[in-house]
């Protein structure tokens, strides 16, 4: 598939992928590799090792792989570098172009002494009619991450940035519904890029000055019709801007914490707040993050088991802590039999993230009284009124 004259998509589509190291990918994914035919032949990124043959087949339709002069490795992670060893066997004259951390990372991953060219940030490589410009974007989302920009084509190849886990026959943004793309891009950002808002903001600033009419990420569809839309979303997400919505994340053992969650919801709704309920017994942590990215108010509830929070909540909060969502309002709640430590454990996580916590957590013993549940509902309403102010 030719995206621009002489520039081809030669990636692989992973229809069967549903679990990406603990992150559920309900729509599968793709690993996008791009082939540029100029005086020099350049392959930008490869695919996960098990899709090597698919990529090789696509390359062979265009050119003899042995003619590849450069393989650009924008990112060391093995969903993009996995096929590099086999690809280099088919392209023995190729030089691997990568960042400073990229070379260190590739050597450590593959134990090979390949022909490396380390690109400094801002360095350009003339390949004929076109120039490749390499810009380091450390921590979007790894230390080695860099992007490749082709000014003559107004084409940006940013690897994981602007990516979505979508397996599809569609290759471009205008071939799929915007709602699906927005949700997939949000889900991707929330699970992978969220801790690096500052770095994304810096990168967006640098890109702002460039002429770009196509963005080819390393996963999912290629942006060409909706570039302002996706840039707007990234601008929002990287500044932790959210909507006046509430998310209630909870789990329950005998139903008390769940009853409290529902009462909080009732109170929030009475204040006019849209509420999303996510029980950890039926929702995966990575799906909860998609709701979290747009919710200003986050209520988290767990019963206490053996002097601590439930393990499902432990998993959620370990994941959340790592992704560092900022600028939220938090509220903790739960039920207990004798220890009751879970609520203060939840509050400690919220405090560590510098969330605003206007109301102290509620912890109720065994089974709440009707009056206590009405008080919980009132607390929900109070939180909602604060949010909508």
């Amino acid at each position, binding site marked *: 598939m030719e995206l621009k004259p002489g520039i081809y998509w030669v990636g692989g589509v992973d229809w069967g992928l549903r679990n990406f190291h603990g992150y559920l990918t309900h729509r599968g994914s793709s690993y996008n590799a791009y082939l540029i035919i100029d005086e020099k032949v350049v392959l930008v990124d490869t695919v996960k090792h098990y899709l090597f043959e698919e990529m090789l087949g696509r390359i062979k339709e265009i050119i003899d792989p042995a003619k590849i002069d450069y393989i650009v490795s924008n990112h060391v992670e093995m969903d993009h570098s996995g096929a590099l060893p086999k690809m280099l066997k088919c392209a023995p004259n190729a030089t691997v172009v990568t960042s400073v*951390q990229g070379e260190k990372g590739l050597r450590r991953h593959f134990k090979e002494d390949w022909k490396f060219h380390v690109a400094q940030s801002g360095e350009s490589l003339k390949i004929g009619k076109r120039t490749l410009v390499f810009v380091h974007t450390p*921590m979007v989302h790894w230390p080695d991450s860099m992007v490749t920009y082709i000014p003559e084509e107004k084409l940006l190849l940013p690897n994981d940035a602007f990516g979505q886990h979508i397996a599809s026959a569609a290759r471009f943004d205008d071939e799929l519904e915007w709602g699906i793309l927005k949700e997939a891009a949000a889900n991707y950002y929330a699970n992978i890029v969220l801790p*690096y808002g*500052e770095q994304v903001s810096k990168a967006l600033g640098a890109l702002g000055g460039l002429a770009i009419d196509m963005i080819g990420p390393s996963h999912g569809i290629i942006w060409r019709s909706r570039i302002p839309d996706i840039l707007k979303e990234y601008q929002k997400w990287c500044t932790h801007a959210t909507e006046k919505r509430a998310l209630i994340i909870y789990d329950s053992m005998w139903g008390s914490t769940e009853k409290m969650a529902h009462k909080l919801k009732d109170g929030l709704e009475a204040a006019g707040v849209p509420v999303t309920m996510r029980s950890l017994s039926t929702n995966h942590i990575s799906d909860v993050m998609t709701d979290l990215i747009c919710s200003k108010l986050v209520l988290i509830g767990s019963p206490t088991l053996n002097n601590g929070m439930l393990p499902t909540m432990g998993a959620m909060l370990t994941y959340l802590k790592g992704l560092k969502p900022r600028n939220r309002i938090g509220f903790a709640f739960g039920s207990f039999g004798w220890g009751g430590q879970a609520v203060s454990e939840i509050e400690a996580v919220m405090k560590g993230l510098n969330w605003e916590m206007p109301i102290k957590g509620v912890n109720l013993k065994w089974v709440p009284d009707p009056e206590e549940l009405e008080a919980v509902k009132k607390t929900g309403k109070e939180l909602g009124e604060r949010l909508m102010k």
Partner: protein
Amino acid sequence: MPDMDKYQCTVCGYVYDPEQGDPDSNVAPGTPFSAIPNEWRCPTCGAEKSDFVKM
């Protein structure tokens, strides 16, 4: 005279500026790099103090 030089993380490029400190991690402005506790981690990527170099 305490060392008020900036130090850069060799993993991700983050720069520690002693004048700014790292208040989010309880390192007050004005703290020289050498005075930061050894358990401190790079606020961007989590690398250790030993991964930093003087600029």
